[in-house]
């Protein structure tokens, strides 16, 4: 723990040199950051989540971090967490991953597993009997409850496919809008765990059809789920919108899927990459780094913005949902920063720009070249004097060029058309004369 404190101290120093004012520095120290440049504080991180996602996030970190002490830490917590539940399959996996490295306390506990399995079998039998009884009596509400219990049961034991099936089956027995929303939320939860984000989108929209019965928290939950689905489908713009729309009521109410901090991070990064204006105070307060970097971005302190991003990167790569998209979002943000930087100027000194972006002139030149080729920046580079000149499209010239080009094309097309028409006519005549 001590070493971590030190690391955090170092990092704040770094930020200080980047020109962050004292005020934000003190804020930094007051609030222990969850996601920051230092090595991820797994305990604090895990505390944000509950249920299965906590375990899967821990396992994910263990798989990706590539750092033995951190890996073991994550696995240890995952082990403890699983012990509280009934998922023996996951338990076996984690034990295998630990591979005896955490001492005898964290080895395969066959007694516990047998007990859990036995209990599970009994419970399953009981549930089956109950469900059969309900079905013969044809009491809708009871049948729904029965299926729901079955879904909960399977979910707890890690049989996600069966859980999903049972949750969805309750649909036929839903009598009120509340029931439907409940069913949808369950289905969404399981789908996210399974990584089936197509289901998530469809159940979100299904739930949203019952507008009147949605309370603010549920709305926020649904928005988060939809945001995740969009993120996963690489539709960053939609994802950003969903996260930005998420109401602050969310709080810690959806910890089995997503933490409020995550909403800030995901939403902030997606929005920064795609959308122009971010008004997102409530959540951003939770993750000062993201708030700071967005603030820096808009006040044109690109170097420190990019520095923040660089610091965050290692930990974002450990995020179960964001890891695939980090690179993409980062390039987009960087490109946007470059574009925004060049936009107001007629000419830009590349040396200064390279300084502002903490990169070399040659590297910057390459990046600018790509953006110009992509037509995202209208400018040309004077590589001799290392100056970027904005290029103002000459409307008159462009119009002349276009007109002449269109003329040539029209000319060619019409001639081709006349020719083909004549050829067709010839064919006609040939056939007709043959017939006669």
């Amino acid at each position: 723990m001590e070493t971590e404190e030190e690391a955090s101290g170092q990092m704040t120093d770094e930020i200080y040199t980047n020109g962050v004012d004292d005020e934000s520095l003190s804020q930094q120290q007051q609030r222990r950051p969850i996601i920051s440049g230092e090595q991820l504080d797994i305990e604090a991180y895990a505390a944000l989540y509950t249920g299965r996602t906590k375990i899967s996030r821990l396992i994910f970190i263990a798989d990706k971090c590539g750092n033995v002490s951190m890996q073991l830490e994550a696995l240890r917590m995952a082990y403890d967490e699983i012990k509280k539940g009934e998922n023996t399959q996951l338990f076996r996996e984690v034990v295998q991953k630990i591979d005896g490295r955490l001492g005898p306390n964290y080895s395969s506990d066959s007694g516990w597993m047998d007990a859990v399995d036995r209990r599970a079998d009994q419970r399953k039998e009981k549930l089956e009997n109950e469900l059969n009884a309900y079905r013969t009596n044809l009491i809708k509400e009871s049948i729904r409850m029965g299926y729901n219990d079955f879904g909960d049961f399977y979910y707890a034991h890690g049989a996600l496919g069966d859980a999903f099936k049972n949750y969805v089956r309750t649909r036929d027995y839903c009598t009120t809008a509340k029931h439907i929303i409940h069913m949808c939320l369950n289905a969404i939860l399981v789908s996210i765990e399974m990584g089936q984000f197509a289901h998530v989108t469809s159940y979100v929209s299904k739930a949203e059809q019952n507008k009147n019965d949605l309370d603010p928290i549920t709305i926020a939950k649904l928005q988060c789920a939809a945001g995740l689905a969009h993120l996963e489908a690489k539709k960053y713009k939609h994802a950003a919108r969903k996260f930005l729309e998420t109401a602050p009521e969310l709080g810690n109410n959806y910890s089995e899927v997503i933490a409020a901090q995550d909403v800030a991070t995901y939403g902030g990064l997606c929005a920064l990459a795609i959308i122009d204006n971010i008004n997102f105070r409530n959540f951003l307060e939770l993750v000062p780094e993201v708030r700071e970097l967005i603030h820096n971005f808009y006040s044109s302190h690109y170097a420190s913005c990019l520095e923040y991003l660089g610091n965050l990167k290692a930990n974002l790569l450990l995020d179960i949902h964001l890891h695939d998209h980090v690179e993409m979002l980062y390039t987009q943000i960087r490109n946007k920063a470059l574009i925004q930087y060049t936009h107001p100027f007629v000419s830009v000194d590349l040396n200064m720009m390279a300084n502002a972006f903490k990169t070399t002139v040659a590297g910057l030149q390459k990046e600018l070249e790509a953006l110009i080729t992509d037509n995202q920046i209208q400018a040309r580079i004077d590589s001799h004097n290392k100056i970027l000149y904005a290029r103002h499209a000459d409307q008159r010239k462009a119009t002349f060029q276009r007109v002449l080009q269109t003329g040539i094309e029209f000319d060619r097309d019409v001639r081709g058309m006349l020719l083909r028409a004549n050829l067709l006519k010839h064919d006609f005549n040939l056939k007709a004369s043959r017939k006669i």
Partner: protein
Amino acid sequence: MNLNANSVDSLVAEIQGFSGSSQDVNHLNNLLKQSEDVIRSQAATFASCLTQLDPSIHSLGYLYILEACTAGPIPEAQANELVLSVVRFIDVCSVAQIRLVPDKFISICKRLHEQVMILGAPMRAVAPLLTAIRKIQPSSEHLTPLHPDFLQVCLLSKCYKTGYSILEDDVYEVDQPRDFFLYCYYGGMICIGQKRFAKALELFHNVVTAPMSSMNAIAVEAYKKYILVSLIHLRQFSATFPKYTSSVAQRNLKNFSQPYIELANSYSTGNISELEAFVVANQEKFENGNNLGLVKQVVSSMYKRNIQRLTQTYLTLSLQDIANTAQISTAKEAEMHVLEMIEDGEIYATINQKDGMVRFLEDPEEYKTCEMIEHIDSSISRIMKLSKKLTTMDESMACDPLYLSKVGRERQRFDFDDFDGVPQKFNL
């Protein structure tokens, strides 16, 4: 024998007599048509009488006899003489008279073409065939069967300029699709020789998109060259056919030109070493298609494409950087490419040899000069003429009985089918 000699003499006399007014010539034409068999059977006897006729005055009769003489197989010894006499005839004959029997005129021109090919001297037929085309053509819009032959001899004798002169005419009236295909194919090759890639592209495009009911080798070869020229000239190739392309062509052309399609794909990646490796690997295939030269031009156009891209991004760039970005091995070579492109007017730039820098400039054309305005003016009037032609054609097609009957028939059948459907439904 005597009788024959008589008829020969009398026919020659008639030819001499009836070559004056147009009425007389028409009369003579009828006479000659009736005695065609005689002329054919006595070709040798008639040949000796040719000396009594003046090809410029007695063109019609001369043509009949000449055609008869050349109809049979020609011994090698006489080939040279025959070529000479045909060439002389084409040179001096009267346009009005030969147009009465275009078949015969075309047939002797074809024989001429055949003979110079056998003699291995295609150059000898270039000028005569050009004259022949001009004489037999009702207007410059007509494609004659002589066009492909002419272009072929031009190609073989490398007289691209002469060949190109005929390609400048817009052709609309076509008799035989085969003539048209060959005309466009050879024409395209001549344009390549003249580096008129835009025109070449247009001609090949015409072949590829021409209506056809079955595949033909000309279209396949034209498509291959179309791909290559498109890469050289436009620096890109779109593999989708325009929707007016015949379905046969759309379905089959790509299968026949697989290596070329792959070449285009490799080109689009912009990676020179990859492209070169592909060319080396498939060298034999391109060689067999006689397209290796064009393929090499494709490779060098890749360098130019990469340099041209740089002009969009840079104002100044050192030659070394150009070499690096465009994957050219040395700065010297890059300088050569840039120089070539400046000379061809593809880019506007100045090279500063002292610092080894290239300064890219904007297109200096301001669209303010008189010439430019004249150019635009002439373009407008040309296009107006063209669209008038289109309207006329549209109208004439709308009145064409053949077209109307076909359209009418189709519609009727469609209605009938519709009608037929109803009772069937009731049967169920």
